[in-house]
């Protein structure tokens, strides 16, 4: 299980490659809206979902993400998805994510 702060940081790391408003990104909090504030192209929704799946070796139903719009919304979902995961596995996945460069994240 991730803490709220850990989940928040993880979501920011995952959305980082898709952000167009870097000023807003620097001051992002849980209420920051991914599409409107960070100006992430809404079609990248699927890429964010894929990045979460790949990072944590999960399969997530598309519908679970419907309605998620803020960094905090996605962080809460992430906490739920990883609730039963071994904390060491989660830690390793988060570490791996930090070292993934933006270009490596790009397909």
């Amino acid at each position, binding site marked *: 299980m991730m803490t709220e702060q850990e989940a928040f940081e993880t979501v920011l790391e995952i959305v980082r*490659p898709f952000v167009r408003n870097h000023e807003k990104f620097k001051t992002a909090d849980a209420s920051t809206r991914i599409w409107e504030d960070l*100006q992430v192209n809404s*079609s*990248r929704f699927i*890429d964010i979902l*894929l990045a979460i799946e790949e990072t944590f070796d999960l399969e997530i139903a598309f519908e679970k993400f419907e309605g998620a719009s803020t960094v905090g919304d996605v962080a809460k979902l992430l906490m739920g998805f990883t609730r039963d995961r071994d904390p060491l596995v989660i830690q390793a996945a988060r570490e791996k994510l930090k070292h993934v460069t933006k*270009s490596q994240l790009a*397909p």
Partner: protein
Amino acid sequence: MKERVVITGIGVLSPNAHGVAEYSAALRAGRSGIRFLETLAECKFGCQVGGIPHDVDRKKRDYFSDEALYAMNSLMIYAGIAGIDCWRDAGLVVPEWSGSTVEWDTGAIVGTGAGGNETLHTRDFEPKVKSGHLRRLGSTIIEETMCSSASAKLGGLLALGGHVTTNSSACATGTEAIVEAYFHIAQGRAKRMLAGSAEGGTETTAPYAWAGFDAMRVTARGHNDAPEKASRPMSATAGGLVPSAGAGLLLLESLTSARERGAKIYAEVLGGSANCGGQRGGGTMTSANREGVVRCIRDAVARAGVSPREIDAINGHLTATNFDPGEIAAWSEALDVEAARFPPINATKSLIGHALGASGALECIAAVLELHEGFLHPSINCEDLNPALDPIATSVVRDCRPFEGKIVAKASFGFGDVNACAIFGKWSES
């Protein structure tokens, strides 16, 4: 009233140069951009040489954010670099994403031959679809593979609000784009048009892009150990085309608009034409009906309001295939000139290979720089001139020479028996 159309910006990313100054220097020096490509050798290509713009993996980060690059294949990157260079060269400012100003009077025609289909290979499209893992394709497949991917990207990068589209007519694409953009402005439908073309292909993806040409045996097979000698238009030992990639874009602008903002002017577009030989009279899907070629050149010259004998130089299509002598004969017929008066002619493909959909634009840029700067670039690798061209031997430009001419004709011909011809004039107020 017909608007005069001038060229106020140029962006060029070719296998032998990046940017106007480098391209001009490479043309004058007769510098080849063709090199041996290990990836082609690994795939057992007959032709293992080609032309790919240099160092783009590093340069692209000077132009695009990671967010933008996430959804850009090489076609879009090449077009994007040339488009941004062209915009800046014209004295215009690339807008911020956060701005709200749209250039309502500026459009774009950015053509391509093969489009962004390299993305299907780099993203394992077929295995993912066949195994039902559709979601794993991610969100970018369509925006990268749609035929209009490059024009769409540039429309956003430059906040264009006019007619933004792509054209595709195989190897005539680039010249056709410029001709079409010329009509847009001449007819008062736009103040400015970004016009030209791009063709994708990196060392990694070139095998996919070019395999079909190798299969057709239309590529040069005899010079894998001497890449710079491989592209041999007008040569007795011409053995086929050398494929290449890159992008060339010009900013076409109404003279009124150019004057209003005090823009520098490279040259004037005097006229142009595009047609099809109907795949009759010797024309097929892959070869030209000579009457179509002749009509296209004549129509372009007539629309330019000049006499055929006023053409001072020709930048040929000249692919280093067995059509080269036929092309020369078609120029002679269209311009109604005997061999002794045949204008100087050169083949930019001898230096940069055949950039397919991008070729017309890269070669039009060569013609425009020649007019603007007063030189004719050498056509290399035709020291052993095809004997059929002996009557015009002195017209074949084999060493860089000064040029004081006022009008240059450029034509491109493509699969589908399609033709395009643009007539460029040295800039003068009168």
